């Protein structure tokens, strides 16, 4: 703060005109959204009653977004059951995807040509075909292979015979399809993470006498996590929603449950809102979890750890508050 001699100089902060126009536009749009969400429309019916012998009719109104019906279905047991299946599908498919994806990434980086070529082919195939097709494929696999036999390849020795139809029930088919497809994407994410680790770290581990596996487990993977976690978080959230495709092979997850309900009562919009609310809730929880995981794996990478959301909110609030405070004359700086 500057002063001219002993006369106090008033500090005029820079005015961000464009910023304020942007804020105004955003506010108007927000108001419009809230307005339409809470608006009511005529139902086309009237409520009539007699007032001192004269019949009076008033048109009836209802929520445009049928919030009353939304509220009614939000916590029904069918929706809850669907939600549970969605979570199960997401978790299991991601566990399959992450572990298989990590394995494929390690294979891809192996000096052994056969391993790296198989890994490359896997990614090429599963990224190159639509997940919907893969889902239908696994659900109908019994057409190709009605029986599963475990034995020695190419020899007439078998140990176990199973009916494929009894294993590839819709839920299992969905897990296999989503998990294998996810592994292709996760392998690329994991590979980027492994490549991001400094080669010097591997050398240091080798010079201590760690084997390749020990180096991978104790040094490379923990450091790769910092790079792997953020896109993996996206993948989990994406899987949460992709799992709704499983309804096509008659798995009653969240979207399937909603569709079952609206196919009998025709309340399509309210039920779509119901499941959207649930998807948003789970996504929010996942995002919070992702934040803390990132913070955990960032240890050592930064001199000072990033702030927690609460700390960040505090600084934000302080920042906004200071915008509304009138600037004080530059007094205390000059003595």
């Amino acid at each position, binding site marked *: 703060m500057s002063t001219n001699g002993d006369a106090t100089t008033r500090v005029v902060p820079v005015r961000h005109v464009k910023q304020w126009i942007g804020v105004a536009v955003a506010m108007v749009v927000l108001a419009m959204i809230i307005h339409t969400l809470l608006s009511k429309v005529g139902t086309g019916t009237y409520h009539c009653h007699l007032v001192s012998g004269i019949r009076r009719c008033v048109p009836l109104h209802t929520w445009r977004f049928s919030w009353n019906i939304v509220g009614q279905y939000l916590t029904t047991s069918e929706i809850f059951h669907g939600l549970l299946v969605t979570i199960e599908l997401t978790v299991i498919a991601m566990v399959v995807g992450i572990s298989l994806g990590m394995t494929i990434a390690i294979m891809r980086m192996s000096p052994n040509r056969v391993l790296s070529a198989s890994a490359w082919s896997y990614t090429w195939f599963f990224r190159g075909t639509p997940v919907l097709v893969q889902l239908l494929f696994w659900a109908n696999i019994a057409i190709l292979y009605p029986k599963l036999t475990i034995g020695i390849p190419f020899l007439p020795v078998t140990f176990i015979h199973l009916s494929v139809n009894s294993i590839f029930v819709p839920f299992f088919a969905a897990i296999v399809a989503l998990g294998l497809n996810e592994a292709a994407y996760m392998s690329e994410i994991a590979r980027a993470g492994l490549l991001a680790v400094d080669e010097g770290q591997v050398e240091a581990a080798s010079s*201590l006498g760690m084997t390749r596996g020990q180096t991978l487990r104790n040094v490379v993977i923990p450091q790769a996590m910092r790079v792997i976690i953020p896109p993996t978080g996206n993948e989990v959230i994406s899987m949460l929603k992709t799992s709704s495709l499983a309804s096509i092979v008659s798995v009653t997850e969240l979207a399937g449950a909603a569709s079952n309900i609206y196919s009998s009562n025709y309340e399509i919009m309210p039920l779509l809102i119901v499941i959207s609310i649930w998807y948003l809730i789970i996504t929010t929880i996942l995002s919070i979890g992702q934040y803390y995981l990132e913070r955990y794996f960032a240890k*050592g990478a930064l001199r000072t750890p990033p702030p927690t959301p609460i700390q960040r909110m505090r600084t934000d609030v302080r920042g906004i508050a200071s915008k509304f405070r009138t600037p004080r004359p530059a007094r205390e700086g000059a003595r």
Partner: protein
Amino acid sequence: MTSVPMVSASGVCKSYAGIEVLRGVDLTVNRGEVTCLIGPSGSGKSTFLRCINHLEKHDAGELRVDGDLVGYEARNGKLYELNDKRICQKRSEIGMVFQRFNLFQHLTVLENLTIGQIKVRGQSTDRAKAKARELLDRVGLDNKEKHYPSQLSGGQQQRVAIARALAMEPKLMLFDEPTSALDPELVGEVLDVMKDLAQSGMTMVVVTHEMGFAREVADTVYFLDGGVIEESGNPREVLSAPSSERLKSFLSKVL
């Protein structure tokens, strides 16, 4: 008994994609001695050091550590290539300190010193920690055990790296330009730790540009140029009165 030298190399060669980096290196490191390896950039100093602990595989020549061939085992008149496990076990007996420290970024200072003991030696966590603390005390960093490497200065990181290597109780320590990445005022603290180590009788091979250190601490200096040892001997003689033109011109550049 007349002891075998800790390191003996004769005619060690190494090439990358047809380019000869080492063209027959002959060198001997006796037990308890400090050997300094000097030479211009690109002369193959790092490559040779890395051959000693088999981070690189030499193509030809004989390289022995503690009497044993590096990477092979002679049995019944045949040479058997060592498997990964044996190579790792041999490496764990040789400590290495890098120019860029290479501390494990995701581990605290203490964990950097215990991980090798626990994972490679199968030491118990308690004993590993006790040993780690003793070594941190020795390099003057006993108050930093909970810090992460990124929170330390370069000199402190290099001292931790030395302690990490010592935690494995190596019979030989290799240093690859340990002070080259440091700010000038931090070089001294690392050299002090190394002098201390030399005094304790550790066998050391040090690639360095610190001629003062070489003169003061080394028992033997080797000058590597173009993949061969051009000159070697007592540091006082070699560094004060170099006989080869190349060493003369090299010394005039670094001093």
